[in-house]
């Protein structure tokens, strides 16, 4: 039995939102490191981050029974005891800030504004820096939110752990870095990555993959070791089993673990070992692996999020 009430649209949104958040943070970090370099990579990555979140939100909207009511955000997201409310407003703000950041990263736009607007000519660079920092904060929020949405639901044992938002956050950063890497490889002829920037990204990938493996293992262990005598613990264990040895295990081990974690780790280590030698193919392969694995992780975590059989357990307790 799988969780099918939230199907592919929310799963893809959780991936796209997280990936967009991670990509914007990585792009903003590259921008803050040196405002004169990697203009194209930063610009393309910021647009990719914006597009990811925008598409994700459109998917979510399309999944609503009443999308028209959903668009009226002031009434649709007015209950602040719900994390979905915080998430909707946070994503909306992120979308706006990322859009302006991406727009100002387009060189002709910046030049035109500087020509026609005195204030921008004097303060444009500072404005972009401020927007980058705000965008980073909003990106971090969106990355965390994708996991918090599931954790605070409260009705699904697999999601009922702080390790889930931790996992989704690390994965969001991981897939975001991968998206920037893809942009860097695509634009490598026009805007080659500085060696130190490349090394920085490879090191970040190694740290994030190791962290993700640790959090994923801890989450699965926590779920698998739940008290099987209770309906809640039994459902948590069943979800973990579904992923590690049940119906979803083939996809989990091959696409999430092998393709999404082992491959990017190996490619990042290879990239570090190659040093200044050609490492674009390794970077591209690792990044694409991370994106496939990150996407599949959201689908599997949603599908394995089954409810506890509270009625059955209560009845069986009475029948004994």
């Amino acid at each position, binding site marked *: 039995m799988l969780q099918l009430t939230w199907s592919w649209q929310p799963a893809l949104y959780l991936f796209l939102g997280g990936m967009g958040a991670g990509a914007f943070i990585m792009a903003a970090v590259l921008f803050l490191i040196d405002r004169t370099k990697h203009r194209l990579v930063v610009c393309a990555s910021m647009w990719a981050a914006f597009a990811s979140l925008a598409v994700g939100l459109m998917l979510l909207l399309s999944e609503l*029974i*009443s999308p028209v009511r959903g668009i009226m955000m002031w009434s649709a997201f007015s209950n602040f*005891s719900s994390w979905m*409310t915080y998430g909707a407003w946070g994503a909306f703000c992120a979308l706006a800030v990322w859009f302006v950041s991406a727009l100002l990263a387009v060189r002709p736009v910046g030049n035109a504004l500087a020509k026609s607007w005195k204030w921008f000519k004097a303060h444009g660079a500072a404005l972009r820096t401020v927007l980058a920092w705000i965008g980073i904060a909003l990106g971090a929020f969106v990355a965390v939110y994708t996991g918090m949405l599931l954790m605070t639901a409260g009705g699904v044992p697999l999601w009922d752990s702080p390790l889930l938002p931790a996992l989704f956050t690390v994965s969001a950063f991981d897939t975001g870095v991968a998206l920037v890497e893809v942009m860097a490889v695509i634009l490598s002829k026009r805007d080659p990555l500085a060696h130190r920037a490349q090394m920085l990204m490879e090191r970040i990938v190694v740290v994030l993959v190791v962290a993700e493996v640790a959090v994923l293992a801890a989450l699965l262990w926590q779920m698998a070791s739940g008290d099987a005598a209770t309906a809640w613990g039994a459902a948590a264990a069943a979800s973990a089993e579904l992923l590690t040895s049940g119906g979803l295990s083939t996809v989990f081990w091959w696409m999430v673990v092998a393709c999404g974690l082992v491959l990017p780790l190996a490619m990042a280590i290879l990239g570090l070992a190659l040093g200044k030698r050609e490492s674009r193919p390794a970077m591209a392969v690792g990044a694409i692996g991370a994106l496939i694995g990150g996407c599949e992780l959201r689908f599997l975590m949603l599908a394995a999020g089954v409810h506890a059989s509270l009625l059955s357990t209560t009845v069986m307790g009475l029948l004994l």
Partner: protein
Amino acid sequence: MQDARSISRRGLIAGTAAFGASVLVVGGAVSLGGKAFAEGGETASNNGAEVGGTQYGFMVDMGRCVDCEMCVAACRSQNHLSDETPNRRAVSSFLDSNGMNVYVSTSCMHCDDPNCLRVCPAGAISKSEAGIVHVDKDKCIGCKYCFQACPYGVPNYNSEAMDKCDCCLDAGVAPGDQPYCAQACIFNALKYGPVDELVAEAEQRGLAPVPVGEPCGPNCYLVRGVK
């Protein structure tokens, strides 16, 4: 790569600081999340407390239910559920230790502290008189977050909004009056009333009522009386 493209030390520190700051924001947001979660619980119970009156609920006697599904049919017809709308009430069957079938009729538990109410972003769910958990279908956006929040997976959906038991409130039954499912049960297996009274009455009969699970304080109790 060319040396001209190498990054300055100051730039590297700034970049690392930016990434570190994002981690701090992540930590802050997680704490905020915990707080929002706690506040959510408080809001839900406040809403429940505002009702002020008696909490009503269901008592299901597994020894009496025969799976006639009259409760399910009455619920559907009296609430004018459309063909596409799933049943609000379900009769589940179990086998006891003697291999005999045992039946249980359940619906929304009208919890003391409903998770669905807490997570609904539109504030479409409220706890009204008699402790009935009610959905305002004109406010519901249909995000289905309430399904993920309900430990029992009660909320259903049709093409309009979320749909679940409201103790026949929208069908014209006054809060505290008998909903159509309880009225339809000729075997007295499904009773509706003030929860405290239902529990006390069952205990007087020598039975030990058990709530369906623990989360959120469900107001649906099970007993197994004499068949």
